[in-house]
C-alpha cells in the first residue's frame, strides 16, 4: 500500500499554468485527475471575454466592489425608486444642448441615474449636489429603444470609460464605478445609447457631436465638484 500522493498547492499549479513547471509537478499532474482538471480549467484561453474586460479602464479611474456596496444600500435605493415611480417620472441628467439643471422627462426616453457612494453612504444624485474627491460614482441606465451603452469622459478628447450591451432587465447597472479626483470644478460624462456597438474609429467624433437621432441618443452629465460635502 502506498501513501496518497501529496497534491501540489494551488499556487504551484497556478504557476505551472503560467509556464513555471517542474518535472515532479508534471509527473503528478499526469496521474492526478483532480490536479489535471484544475490545470485544464485555468489554462483555458478560449472563453469569451466579457464587456468589462474588453476596454482598458482609464488610468485615473478605480473600480470598486460595486456589487458589494450597492446591495447594502438597497433599502435606501429602493425607497428612492418607489418615490420615483409614484411621481411617474424619471430624473434624466441635462442634455448637451441645454444649460439648465437636471430636468424631468416622461418615461420612454433613455435615462441615466447616478449613484454616489460617499464613505458608507449611498445616494442618488439629485442633479445639483456636488461631488467631493474620493466619492465613487456609478451609473444605472435604462432605454427601451437601444441595446448598447457607451460612457466617455474627458472632453474634448473623449476617453471611453465603459462600453457594453444593456441587460434584458428594464435597468442596467454598469459594472464599473469611478472615483472622483480633486482636479477641476466638475465631472463631465457623456452617455451614448445606441442600437449597435459604436464603431471604434468613430467613437471620439460621436462623443464630440453628441448625436440625438433615431439610433443614437446622447445624454450629458455635468456633476459639480467641491472640496467638502
Amino acid at each position: 500500500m502506498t501513501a496518497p500522493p501529496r497534491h501540489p498547492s494551488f499556487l504551484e499549479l497556478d504557476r505551472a499554468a503560467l509556464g513555471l513547471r517542474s518535472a515532479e509537478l508534471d509527473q503528478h499532474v499526469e496521474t492526478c485527475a483532480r490536479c489535471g482538471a484544475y490545470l485544464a480549467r485555468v489554462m483555458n484561453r478560449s472563453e469569451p471575454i466579457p464587456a468589462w474586460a474588453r476596454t482598458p479602464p482609464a488610468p485615473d479611474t478605480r473600480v470598486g466592489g460595486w456589487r458589494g456596496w450597492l446591495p447594502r444600500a438597497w433599502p435606501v435605493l429602493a425607497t428612492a425608486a418607489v418615490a420615483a415611480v409614484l411621481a411617474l417620472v424619471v430624473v434624466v441628467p441635462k442634455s448637451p444642448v441645454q444649460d439648465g439643471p437636471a430636468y424631468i422627462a416622461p418615461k420612454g426616453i433613455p435615462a441615466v441615474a447616478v449613484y454616489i457612494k460617499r464613505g458608507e453612504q449611498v445616494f442618488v444624485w439629485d442633479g445639483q449636489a456636488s461631488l467631493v474627491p474620493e466619492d465613487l460614482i456609478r451609473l444605472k441606465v435604462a432605454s427601451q429603444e437601444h441595446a448598447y451603452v457607451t460612457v466617455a469622459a474627458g472632453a474634448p478628447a473623449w476617453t471611453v470609460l465603459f462600453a457594453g450591451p444593456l441587460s434584458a432587465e428594464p435597468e442596467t447597472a454598469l459594472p464599473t464605478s469611478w472615483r472622483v479626483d480633486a482636479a477641476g470644478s466638475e465631472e463631465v460624462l457623456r452617455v451614448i445609447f445606441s442600437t449597435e456597438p459604436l464603431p471604434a474609429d468613430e467613437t471620439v467624433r460621436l462623443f464630440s457631436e453628441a448625436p440625438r437621432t433615431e439610433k443614437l441618443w446622447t445624454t450629458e452629465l455635468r456633476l459639480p465638484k467641491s472640496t467638502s460635502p
Partner: protein
Amino acid sequence: MDTDIQSAYLRYFPLIREKCRRMLGDSDEAQDVAQETFLRLWKSGFQTKDPRHATAWIYRTSTNLAVDRLRQRRTVPSEVAVAQMAVERSTAETEVQHRQELELYARHLPPEALEAALLHRLDGLTQQEVAEVLQMSDRTVRRLLLKLDAQVEHLRRTLGT
C-alpha cells in the same frame, strides 16, 4: 503583464476566478472580487511576466479583498453552498469545513491571521509559500496560524457553535 487587456484577461482571469471561488464559494461576491483583483492588476501597470511574482501579487491582493468581504458578512454560509462544494470535489470536505469555520468567525478574527489561514488551509500553500505571498517570515506565519487556532477554539466555546 501582457500588453493588451484581453490577453491579460485570458492569461490571468481563470486562475483569479478559481482562487476567489475557493475563498468565497461560487457566488456573485467571488466574481466581484475576481473582477476587482484583475482590474487592480491591470491598473497597477504590472509589467512582469514572471509567474512567481504575478501569482504572489494575485494571491495577496485577492486574499486581502476576500477577507474584507468575509468580515463584512452578517450571515452564516448557506448549507446549500457548502453541500455544492462538497459534491464538486470529493477531497474537499476538510476544505469546506475550514471555509465554513472561517466565514463563521471572520468578524472576530484579525485580518492578517485570516489571510494566512485562507492561503494555508484552502489553497493548500505550505507555510513557506504563505510567507512568500504575504511577505512575512515563516515564523510569523506559524505564529499567526497557531494564534488563529486558539482564537477559533475560544470562539467555538464562547459562541457555542
